[in-house]
């Protein structure tokens, strides 16, 4: 970039873009998937009245939530109860920090990017436990504990699935992983680059299952199972605080999809055979503009998978959930690490 910005200027720009990157895709995903796709999969129209094709429905919903009373249960631990949504959103905003959108268009390129992302993604567990504990409601407490048990159980397959990618890329930096995929070759053929979904498809599958569980999306939504626990840890929340948990959930879903795109689908780059046609490099300055669009496209594809599963499967039982994580996913991901390591050393 030819323009030199002072530190405070570039930082302010980053903070504004962070707001955009968290809130706009979250709203878009709620309208596109939760309202429309879910309706079509269930043979109904969904919202149609507010705006053309119901596109303003979200604004109407936010207006409704704004006017709802903010009820604090009498016995609740007030401070913990009030702070819980802050902690959940804190995790979301720290997660978006390491997502790269272009060769220069990133918030910050930490050397330990992937590791940082995996670490702060666990912060939301604290917020959920706080919500469950602070409500002073038996269903809330059970839901909070279930959420904690589920999130830590699926944290492990997720972390171990990413190790395969790190072995192949040889770096923890998000930008490094993107470059490694753009410059990579598959048996001497560089036309596709080397998006790690091809060599790490086992890792990708485990990662996506773990993401589904981390987001407590059906079939992993036992923490808020309405037929067993009312709404679990959300039972006592109302109005804006309730909505904030939802914003956190859908924004985090998008950010995990961004991560999946960066780790497995080549991030903000397009396959080299396309850039070759136009005679540009994969990290040309134009990708500061095209990169976010490419990322958004890949993100929408990945979130489509997430919501597709969400609307298609019934809920697991609690014991099936834990068995699946500990007895199937973790052994498979350990084997995946081992095989990836052997192949890396041998070739």
């Amino acid at each position: 970039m030819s323009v030199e910005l002072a530190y405070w200027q570039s930082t302010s720009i980053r903070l504004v873009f962070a707001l955009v990157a968290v809130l706009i895709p979250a709203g878009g995903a709620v309208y596109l998937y939760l309202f429309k796709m879910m309706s079509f999969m269930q043979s109904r129209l969904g919202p149609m009245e507010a705006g053309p094709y119901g596109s303003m429905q979200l604004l109407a919903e936010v207006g409704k939530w704004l006017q709802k009373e903010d009820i604090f249960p009498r016995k609740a631990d007030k401070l913990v109860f009030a702070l819980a949504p802050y902690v959940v959103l804190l995790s979301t905003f720290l997660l978006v920090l390491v997502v790269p959108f272009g060769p220069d268009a990133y918030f910050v390129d930490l050397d330990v990017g992937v590791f940082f992302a995996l670490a702060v993604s666990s912060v939301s567990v604290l917020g959920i436990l706080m919500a469950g504990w602070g409500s002073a409601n038996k269903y809330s407490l059970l839901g909070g504990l279930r959420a904690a048990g589920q999130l830590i159980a699926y944290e492990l397959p997720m972390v171990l699935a990413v190790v395969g990618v790190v072995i192949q890329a040889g770096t923890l930096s998000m930008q490094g992983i993107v470059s490694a995929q753009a410059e990579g070759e598959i048996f001497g053929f560089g036309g596709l680059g080397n998006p790690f979904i091809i060599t790490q498809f086992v890792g990708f599958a485990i990662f996506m299952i773990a993401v589904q569980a981390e987001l407590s999306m059906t079939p992993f939504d036992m923490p808020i199972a309405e037929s067993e626990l009312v709404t679990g840890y959300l039972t006592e929340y109302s109005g804006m605080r309730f909505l904030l948990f939802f914003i956190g959930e859908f924004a985090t879903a998008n950010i995990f999809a961004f991560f999946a795109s960066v780790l497995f689908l080549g991030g903000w780059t397009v396959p080299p055979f396309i850039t070759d046609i136009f005679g540009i490099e994969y990290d040309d300055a134009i990708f500061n503009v095209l990169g976010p669009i490419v990322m958004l496209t890949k993100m929408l594809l990945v979130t489509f998978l997430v919501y597709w599963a969400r609307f298609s499967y019934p809920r697991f039982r609690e014991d099936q959930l834990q068995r699946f994580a500990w007895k199937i996913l973790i052994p498979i991901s350990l084997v995946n690490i081992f095989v990836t390591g052997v192949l890396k050393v041998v070739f």
Partner: protein
Amino acid sequence: MYSDFLRDYLIVVLFGVLAFVVVGAFIGLASLVRPDRPTPAKVTAYESGVDPVDGGWSQSQIRYYIFALLFVMFDVEAVFIFPWATRLEEYGMFGLVEMTIFIFILALGLGYAWRKGVLRWV
């Protein structure tokens, strides 16, 4: 001269502050327009319409604690695996054998927990 390294992490702090500001702004905005009329029935814990018995905090299953312990074991392992994964090319066969032994010992731990039946959720 400012350190780029520390500046990178200053942004981490600023993003954390931003999250708190955003949540505070949403809740603050809502507090301007929402009603506030708590009644005894409203502020009672909602347990499917039945009046709550005792407090909301009850004792819970020990299995949550055991799963948390297992998690700590594997998460610490992940801390060791990541640096190894970035440098595997330099370590070559030596690193591979070392890590195989490490993962084998961990798998033994998982196998022990499995055999002891703590992975069963009943």
